[in-house]
């Protein structure tokens, strides 16, 4: 179980071994209500959900440490590994900036508005 995100009354829980996110209800994480496969974004460290239902994945994959999946689990965007070589945590703030923890480099705030709709 690696990665958590919240949207409204839902909690999104990432699972490496099952290669998908599961959705539960807050506050007691009851009643699994859905699941989305990770597609190419497994080996998750952390996840974040966008307001329109997509999932950012911070993963151990060296070829795509930070990527955005569609709500169906299809890889939509892979952030350039030259910009983000590794990612162990991910969060979206209220302004739409993406915060990413990058081992050895700190925590960065990333403006992805040019490449992500």
């Amino acid at each position, binding site marked *: *179980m690696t990665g958590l995100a*919240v949207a409204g009354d839902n909690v999104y829980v990432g699972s490496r071994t099952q290669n998908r996110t*599961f959705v539960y209800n807050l506050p007691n*994480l009851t009643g699994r209500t859905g699941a989305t496969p990770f597609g190419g974004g497994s080996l998750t460290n952390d996840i974040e959900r966008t307001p329109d239902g997509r999932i950012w994945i911070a993963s151990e994959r060296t070829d795509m440490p930070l990527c955005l999946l569609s709500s169906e689990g299809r890889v939509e965007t892979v952030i350039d590994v030259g910009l983000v070589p590794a990612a162990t945590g991910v*969060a979206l703030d209220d302004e739409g900036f993406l915060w990413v923890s990058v081992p050895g480099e700190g*925590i960065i705030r990333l403006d992805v508005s040019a490449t992500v709709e």
Partner: protein
Amino acid sequence: MSSNLIGLILCLALAASCGGASQAAEAGEAGTDVIDRTLEAPAEGISGLAWGDGVLLAVDGATGMVYSMDPVSGAVADSFKVSLNGRSHATGLAYSPEHDLILVGLWDGGTNGWVGVYSPDGENLNNISMCGG
């Protein structure tokens, strides 16, 4: 055209070119992502981030420390420790504004996972076992 005038024109052209490149770098090239801020991490092993009510939350996987950070300066305003209870590490972090809860993922590296439910001041309210790793 005198050599002085040619030199002046070349200098002006060079200055305009350099200024334009600088502006493009600051604003980000069209179609590229931009790192516009870097904060010092409060610990070596950050393994989850969350945005909560104007602060950036971060959890250290090995120690289970949850940090509340100023998103501009990176200063740690508050922190609390998650009980790992022998589980190998914390991974994943989320905040629910509706319920004012901090959720911390705990994983044994295999097929056992838990979600620790905490109040913003660090009170442990629940630990929920999740199937799958």
